[in-house]
């Protein structure tokens, strides 16, 4: 194999590994930041949802069903006006039927099918990052802490997407530069190392050529690379021994 062939054979996977590692590192930075951002965003939204929920549960704790909460529409309308990032608020009864509604949009459209079972079972707010919005579904608990209904609040994810776009834009040049540099340095470095290795092997090959049995002149083989001297000496000795035996056989 020629040095260039071997270089390519080693360089391509080396570059592939390095590129994959850099890209993975970049992805990790992006995904982890998104995770932390979502955590902070969800915790802010959950705080607001808990506020609305507490207002609604005041009525439920009096033993009223969801549809009988007199101020429910007022509470959710006020909340949706106060926070411009809220797209819609739905108050649902225990069967999951929307009773009160504020704002526009898909309501529970992006919630998983089993949202009700999940909310009832876990008795805590379901937090979903849907493709078009953040959706928080909180259980509304009645007088005996039982599931009396749910509050579904959809928040816009425009700010989130904008932040993530900025992070992406910040990461892409860094990652691209790192990949390009790695490719260049990797290719150049591997080629240098391969050339050096091939040169060394070439010296040994050359020594074996000089020392091969076509040329038994020890003044020539003496110049051979030290590492192959014992092998060459053994080969010479073997030939010599065979020839001497040959001579002895003929003379007999």
């Amino acid at each position, binding site marked *: 194999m020629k040095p260039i062939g071997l270089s390519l*054979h080693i360089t391509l996977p080396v570059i592939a590994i390095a590129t994959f*590692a*850099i890209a993975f*590192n970049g992805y*990790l930075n992006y995904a982890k930041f998104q995770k932390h951002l979502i955590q902070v965003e969800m915790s802010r939204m959950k705080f607001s949802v808990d506020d609305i929920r507490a207002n609604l549960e005041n009525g439920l704790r009096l033993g009223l069903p969801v549809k009988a909460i007199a101020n429910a529409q007022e509470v959710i309308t006020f909340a949706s006006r*106060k*926070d411009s990032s809220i797209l819609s608020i739905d108050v649902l009864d225990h069967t999951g039927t929307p009773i009160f509604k504020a704002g526009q949009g898909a309501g529970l459209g992006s919630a998983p099918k089993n949202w009700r079972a999940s909310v009832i079972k876990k008795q805590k707010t379901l937090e979903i990052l849907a493709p078009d919005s953040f959706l928080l579904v909180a259980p509304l608990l009645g007088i005996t802490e039982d599931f009396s209904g749910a509050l579904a609040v959809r928040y816009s994810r425009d700010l989130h997407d904008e932040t993530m776009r900025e992070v992406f834009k910040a990461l892409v040049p*860094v990652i691209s530069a790192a990949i390009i*540099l790695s490719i260049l340095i990797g290719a150049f470095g591997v080629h240098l190392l391969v050339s050096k290795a091939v040169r060394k092997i070439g010296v040994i090959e050359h020594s074996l050529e000089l020392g091969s049995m076509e040329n038994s002149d020890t003044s020539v083989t003496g110049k051979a690379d030290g590492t192959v001297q014992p092998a060459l000496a053994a080969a010479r000795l073997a030939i010599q021994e065979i020839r001497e035996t040959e001579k002895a056989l003929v003379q007999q």
Partner: protein
Amino acid sequence: MTLIRKQLYVVAARSFFVFMLLLMLVSQAGVSISSWPGIKGKLVPELDRKALSISVSLSTKIARALDYGVPLEELYGVEIFFDEVLGQTEGISYLALSKLDGNILVSRGIDSRGLQQGLSASLSEITSTLGVPAIITVASETGNPSASRSYRNTAVKVLQQEEIDKALIHVGFDPDYSERKVSDLKYDVVIVLFASLLIGFEILLALLTGNFIGPLKAAANRIERMARGDFSNPAKSSSGGIAARLNARLDRITERINETYSSMIDIARGLPQSRVQSAVAALESIGERLRIRQEADASDNAKDVVRVRILTFIFMFASMLSRPFLPVYLGEIADQSSTLSPELSSSIPITAYLASMALCMPYAARWSDTYGRRNSYMLGALLMAGGLLGTALAGNFWVLVVSRVIEGVGYALMFMSCQGYVVDNTNAENRSRGIATFVSAIMVSEVCAPAVGGVLADSMGFSGVLAVAALLSVFALPLAWKILAVNGNASNRKENSKDAYAGGTSLLRNSRFMAISIFAAIPAKILLSGFLIFLTPVVLANFGSSNSEIGRFAIVYGVIALLAMPLFSMIGDRYQCHFPLVIAGGLISGICLLPIALEPSSRMVLLGIVGLGLGQAMSISSQLTLISRSVETINGHENASSALGLFRLIERIGGALGPVIAGIIALRMGPVSAISILGFVMVSSTIFCLLITIWLRKRDERIAR
């Protein structure tokens, strides 16, 4: 290391490794270091929004109280209310209610004197930028100026009857909060960096072994043989590749010797009949000594076992990727479709996997011997990929159990194929080294796979990671096709493997063998699978650890085992203290699991993992040595390898039982108590093993007298 090896490939290969690892290290560190400051800054606006939401909400609530006519100074329960809010919202350092002149009425989460000074100093800025954070400096309680800290203070007014300014609500965020959030990212990046270096090393090793080290090592072997006066021919001299010209030169030298030898034979044939016999004897003597026109020894033609390292690494990596979250994931699925308790439901699929793996190992070995390493490895890879994919997509508990069984069978096939390859290509002299190469690939994947799996699970979900693991198994197929291509079926081992368990019944009557198997090996494996694989993820998830954090915990076991195992192995051999090591290992791993009963925390789980790593490192190789010895000394006729085979089967059954036992205890007493109980069982059984062995020794001495 001979000079020729150094010259030909050792120095060059080392340079390749150093260069490649440096390239990966520098490039990844560069990406992380240059992107972190920007990323960190992007969290701050969201934190400010959160502070504003909280301050507006608190202001509304207090305004409502004021609207009822309660005077500001006489508001009751604000402290409790603030404490509740602080407890519920991560990242907030303090909450405060102050008069309009900045005098604090209530503050929680911070020293009020320090905050008062800070507010007073920055009041004009705060009041002029209401709703927007202002940086304030708060002195420490001790008054030490160097210990003062800066906070982002977001203030809003409290309005009575929606128009009269009455007070200010202050919400303080520690700016270091985003720093702390990003440091979690730093841990992950360091873990991924470490793992990618190990993975890069494995891939480069495979690459260089095939294209560079392997052919040159073969040439170096040949040159060394020639130097010893051995001119035998390699079974297959490489016609291409890096060593092609070198081999051609060596071929010419060998050919020249062969030609000279042949001409001598011709001369001998031409001699008178009476002299032919003595001439032939002289020729044979030379030919035999110089090994002219002979094939090189099988060991010289054997494949480099390093080639199978990458295959071992890939399947182990694929199987261990899911370790940090598997019980939690299984629990989630089982939760939806199983009628059993969550603890049992999540342990059964793990047990099914370990049991199918343990029970299939003997058959997998035989299958691999009969049908070839490549076929069995590839079948194993397909089964494993199917099992992993089934686990990823399963929505039903029983589908999940079947998927795990299939994965276990795949694992057994791949494991035995790789181990078989090592056995095929080594002899008595270098088998230990070959096995060490195989084991080190397992250990490397043990170190990096759980950590990478945890990090991936945080960003792509459990099913995503399982799908990646399935893809990895499929990726192993073409590699196995290439690497295991020319490796023949070890048909002669078919009989050996048949015999492997033949002596089982007499081994089961060997008291020493059984004492070590039952009271040391089985509890150790129960602990490994029950604690590390099953309970650790469950308990850490209950403590609120993320998948990445659980992965980081799991990595500790691999690192300790990787570092300590060779050390204890050496100590055991040098001081012949294998039995004390088994006892010490059992006690350490058991005792380290006890303190969690007193302090249920992640720290104590970590202590348990460290203890388990150390304990297993002490006892694993010593157990094997003791088993071999007990069989050799008591049942001299028994085959030591068949004893080891049976021992492996017994301990793997222990491994399979681990999750179920842990699950049953966790069901009754909770997962934290289950850890302590497993530790107690380990300590008790180790003491029992010690007592039985002492008794057996005394009995043997009595019989000998």
